[in-house]
């Protein structure tokens, strides 16, 4: 379980840092709504990712019926959580919708970017 925690910590901090830096850049450039939307989306994306990992731990060591109800509950809860930034961005002008949508994929983007970065040098090394 320690490994899971470390992976969560690594990607969560990276996603948050990246979105705050990019968001600040947009806010400094005068695009306030884009920056705020991005950060809003990312916060919920990170929450979703952390809950996803935590729920593995909560599911261990219960009876079958209880595990099933925890699993279903966590799925519904996580999707409701992801719906919040979207609804907020649709309802309020201060949050840019497209930026919020990009934000809720920030965890996935960070994970992929991390692995593509390790893939490219390994291919290059093999070919030489």
């Amino acid at each position: 379980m320690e490994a899971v925690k470390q992976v969560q910590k690594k990607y969560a901090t990276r996603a948050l840092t990246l979105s705050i830096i990019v968001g600040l850049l947009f806010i400094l450039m005068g695009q306030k709504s884009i920056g705020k939307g991005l950060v809003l989306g990312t916060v919920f994306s990170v929450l979703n990712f952390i809950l996803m990992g935590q729920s593995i731990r909560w599911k261990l060591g219960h009876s079958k019926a209880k595990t099933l109800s925890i699993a279903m509950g966590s799925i519904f809860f996580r999707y409701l959580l992801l719906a919040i930034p979207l609804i907020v961005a649709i309802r309020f002008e201060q949050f840019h919708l497209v930026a919020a949508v990009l934000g809720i994929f920030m965890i996935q983007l960070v994970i992929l970017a991390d692995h593509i970065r390790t893939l490219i040098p390994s291919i290059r090394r093999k070919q030489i």
Partner: protein
Amino acid sequence: MGFEVETVIKIAAYTGGGIAMGLGAVGAAIGEGYTAARANLAISRNPEISGDIFKSMLVGQAVAESASIFALVIAILLLFMDAATPSLLKAAAFLGAGLSMGFGAIGSGIGSGYPGGEACFGISQQPAADSQLTTNMLIGSAVCQTPAIFSMVVALMLIFIDFGNAPLTPTWAAFIGAGLSMGLAAIGSGYGGGLAAGASCEGIARSPQSVTNVTTIMLVGQAVSQTPSIFGLLISFILMFKSFPESSMLATPMALLGAGLCMGFGGIGPGIGNGMAAEGAVRWVARNVEHSNELMRIMLVGQAVSQSTAIYAMVVSLVLIFVV
């Protein structure tokens, strides 16, 4: 008609949102379930490294989940957005958007579960290849998401583009046809790409030194498997942006609907078939690296032949759109 235009739009938007989220969740559920099942098997075989297996299961599921998050985005947009220009045409566009996203997420969701499961299982057999397996799994399942991304693009265009005052009668069918064409055609490509990615993770676990060849041939095979969904995208773009003259005949809208159905269903088989061919090739490249060139060649020949039926379907849809 007994309803107000606003009511019809609301009905279409709610139905579309329901279809998008309902169908969109099916694929990701099956895929993530497969990943979790294989991870269970892997942990029971090699309990000492359960941490590593959980870790790559979590990362794999996070990426595999994106297909259903795309569907969530479209569903929320359909439920909460107000139409800028209320017209009956917009109602058809909303329904088409829901169909495109709902069907389109099924294949990608199922497909991206395979690499996750095989990678978890592979780690239990070959713990040293952990990082290569995780990287390959993530690249493979990211490529599986492309058909779902195409579907989301089509759905967003149907939701946001203002089609002005195009004539209602054939155009409503064109929008629903565009949704069906993209959505259904994405099923095969997503699933097929997943088969190839799963086989590549299995192969790397078997012989970690062949990782470069396996990843390369996996990417080539997946790229070819995407072609049917690109045909679907093409047909739905034509259906969305060609302007159709007004007609009161029943046959014209039915021809456009038929074109969408034809390309949509026609893309499923070749997508899965191409994926199977790539799966076979990738699996055997891992076992027999010296002959990877021959295997790549025969995979491409086989995929080209299997592609032909998708091309027939595209020809028939084009005839239905342009000639009839």
